[in-house]
């Protein structure tokens, strides 16, 4: 086998040095009745040319050439080529977790830079080294809020990504957490009055998403202030991280009363391909005072014995390999390589490029929604300001977007459309044509 260097000759010599006659003897610790005495029933081995053919044929069965205006948590933005050039370096992608800091400074410094970028984007004090994805990140944020407040009731906006809510429900079910949903108002944002009436002194946290699942922008600062007024924490979930390049970050305001306690989300739109749903990259940012309640890895700055600065995994007494069942989370790994992609993306586009990309998302979305309203009989459902997604009433088949009935039965035939900077005007016009006919 081409990935196994030692030849039969090597193996015979090694067996002789061990002092056994056959490899079979090395398995003597496995009781005979448990041995598999047949070959695994798998397809016969393929050579490299055959593998290339096998996967090319399957890849071609997923037509991806044209935009299909689908977002809903996974976004197609342009990905600068240098990202793949850099992460294809063996030094990054074939390295292990940086437990041995002296020979892993590259990974450690890159994660430290990721943590800084996420803190800057969200307006928070600190961010961790990344989590599996946005959905599990939100579940971790909920558990973190429970540890901080010692309260068990959570109010979650119905406009939070339905799959994220499902993951939170799975995590919460056996831990005595109570989850109440908060409905949305006719303009497509969280119903503020309902939130006010549902909030109680026993509420651990309010969870809201912005832009929300309908693409509308929530006023997270008013929501944070309301939550804090009743002694609850504010968790803001961001599925479309690129929006942080232009929208006011949940962690930034003149008064801390009006800022989130935890900003959690999905960084896929910052340089990571959709890849059929993963791997992506969750992030979690918070206030300095909650850092010891955070889940996941953290990289910190330290010094060696001669005073040279260097980076190291830190605060690991929160983690499972030290604390076992008392850890802040069972999470072990992060999504280092995807975090690196995000870091390179942000470095490449820079603050001005990021803002321009955001502006194009907003303006192209505004154009598409305007054209649909003007040129078709279909209604745009929600009036609140939007980033790069909006809901259209479809009345029958819609050639694009995500049908919402599966998640929101009351929205019937409506679809969620997404327009990013990658959608050309002629593609948008063609979509409008099809919706008009």
């Amino acid at each position: 086998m081409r990935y196994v260097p030692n030849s039969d000759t090597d193996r015979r010599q090694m067996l002789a040095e061990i002092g056994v006659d056959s490899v079979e003897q090395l398995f003597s610790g496995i009781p005979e009745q448990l041995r598999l005495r047949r070959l695994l029933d798998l397809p016969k081995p393929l050579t490299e040319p055959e593998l290339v053919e096998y996967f090319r044929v399957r890849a071609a069965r997923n037509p991806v050439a044209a935009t299909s205006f689908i977002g809903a948590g996974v976004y197609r933005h342009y990905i600068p080529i240098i990202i793949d050039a850099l992460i294809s370096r063996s030094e990054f992608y074939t390295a292990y977790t940086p437990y041995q800091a002296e020979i892993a400074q590259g990974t450690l410094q890159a994660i430290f830079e990721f943590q800084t970028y996420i803190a800057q984007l969200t307006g928070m004090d600190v961010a961790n080294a990344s989590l599996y994805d946005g959905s599990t990140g939100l579940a971790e944020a909920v558990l973190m809020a429970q540890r901080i407040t010692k309260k068990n009731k959570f109010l979650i906006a119905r406009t939070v990504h339905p799959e994220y809510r499902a993951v939170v429900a799975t995590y919460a079910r056996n831990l005595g957490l109570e989850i109440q949903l908060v409905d949305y108002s006719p303009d497509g944002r969280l119903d503020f009055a309902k939130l006010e009436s549902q909030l109680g002194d026993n509420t651990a946290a309010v969870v809201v998403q912005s832009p929300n699942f309908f693409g509308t922008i929530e006023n997270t600062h008013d929501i944070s202030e309301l939550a804090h007024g009743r002694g609850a924490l504010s968790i803001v979930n961001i599925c479309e991280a690129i929006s942080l390049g232009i929208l006011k970050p949940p962690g930034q305001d003149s008064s801390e009363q009006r800022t989130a306690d935890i900003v959690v989300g999905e960084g896929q739109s910052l340089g990571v391909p959709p890849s059929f749903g993963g791997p992506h990259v969750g992030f979690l940012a918070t206030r300095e005072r909650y850092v010891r309640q955070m889940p996941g890895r953290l990289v910190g700055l330290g010094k060696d014995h001669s005073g040279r600065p260097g980076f190291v995994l830190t605060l690991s007494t929160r983690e499972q390999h030290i604390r076992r069942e008392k850890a802040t989370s069972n999470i072990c790994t992060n999504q280092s390589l995807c975090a690196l992609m995000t870091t390179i993306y942000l470095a490449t586009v820079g603050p001005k490029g990021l803002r321009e990309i955001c502006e194009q998302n907003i303006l192209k979305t505004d154009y598409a929604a305007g054209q649909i309203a003007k040129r078709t009989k279909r209604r745009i459902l929600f009036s609140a300001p939007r980033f790069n997604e909006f809901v259209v009433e479809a009345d029958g088949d819609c050639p694009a977007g995500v049908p919402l009935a599966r998640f929101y039965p009351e929205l019937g035939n409506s679809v969620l459309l997404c327009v990013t900077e990658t959608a050309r005007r002629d593609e948008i016009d063609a979509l409008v044509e099809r919706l008009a006919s």
Partner: protein
Amino acid sequence: MSQPERTSTHISLNERLIFDEGSPGRRGFDLPALDVPDKAVSDVIDPGLLRDDIPGMPELSEVDVIRHFTRLSTYNYHIDLGLYPLGSCTMKYNPKINERMARLDGFALAHPYEPAERIQGALEIQKVLETCLAEISGMDAVTLQPAAGAHGELTGILMIRAYHESKGNPRRKILIPDSAHGTNPASAAISGYSVETVPSNKRGTVDVERLRQVVNADVAAIMITNPNTLGVFESDIAAVAELLHAHGALVYMDGANLNAMMGITRPGDFGVDVLHINLHKTFTTPHGGGGPGAGPVAVKRVLEPFLPSPVITTKPDGTYFFDDARPKSIGKVKGYNGQFGMHVRALCYILANGGEGLKEVSEVAVLNANYIRAKLRDAYALAYDSPTLHEVVFSDRLQARHDVHVWDIAKRLMDYGFHPPTVSFPLIVPGAIMIEPTETESRQEIDAFVDAMLAIAREAEERPELVKTAPHKTRIGRIDEAAAARKPVLRWKPEP
């Protein structure tokens, strides 16, 4: 934040943080001109919802970015450079074709919410991988949804809980051997169970007699690693499973060490009800400097109704679809259906090997580990004398006489050009040195590693200070981790 200035040669160059690089006006990316009518964004969105500039975010050219990250990359050890003997981590060569295949447009750009007829290729990849993993592990059904090993553990334990609940009582506790990975108790706890530790016997395996005393109707399951973290096959595993099953409890297996047994023996054939499989260990998906991993979970028929939703199902016409009509499912554990990019890579590896190739993988992995065991057993104390499979655990007992400890040995190995083994784990071995070479190392590479270990053993006797102050040849020395944790600095900030 103070960083030293750049010094002489590039190889030892101190690369500043990216936030200290660049200069206003530099650009690394140009966006095509806007092709719809231009407007002020503030005409579309209330300006109160918009942010000011992002303070401290650097402006860089494409060259700046390439140089910065290329330089950082040179500070890393990695598997393409040399042997990476981390026990229980299975650092093996990551075939290049896997990377190329996962990047095909049809996979990289596929969206999980496309209608089923537009994602048949992706669904087929996942279905075929499920089938292969079921055959390798001897189980009946597989979910690919969990993102990593620990996430697979959580998924498996939640399924065990759902199974017991369906019988009227979730039960209270999970039994875990003292040699287990730290994720095991953490995953049990997050599933709402209490944890009871089961001590190992003299051979380093689960003590069946002790187990017999603690198994009762409160026990939901045992979480067992096989071969265990000492590299020893749990030879009483069938009896353990029988005992647990007799009390209505289930057997969870941590599949971290599957690399030792492919085509040799199958968890499904020795009584395991549910296990997770680390694609980033056994099935060559790259570790990426700490993720992404992937942790599929395989189950026996009794647990199939509880699999995370959706599952991939085949219609009578042979097409695939996501089936989420699963009333007994534990629900979703992750958005969409797992780390698909890792699934492509793992399937590519399995198809490259076939049944014969995977058996050869396990045989050579075990051969290489036993070769190291034979070569080092005079210089380092074996933790247990039991026969070991794909990894071998020594202790620093002989070196500790000279006040040289496991971390010193680990750091000194860096001076010889190797990544250290896993150290201080498993917890049941004081000063543990856990070595797993994997099958992708040649005899020459292993001999060089053995020579380094033997040299360090001599140094520990003759020049202990040299070892205790190692590493000497790396860019930086040992970092004071306690100081770093006392006043954590977790981000760059602009100079005030």
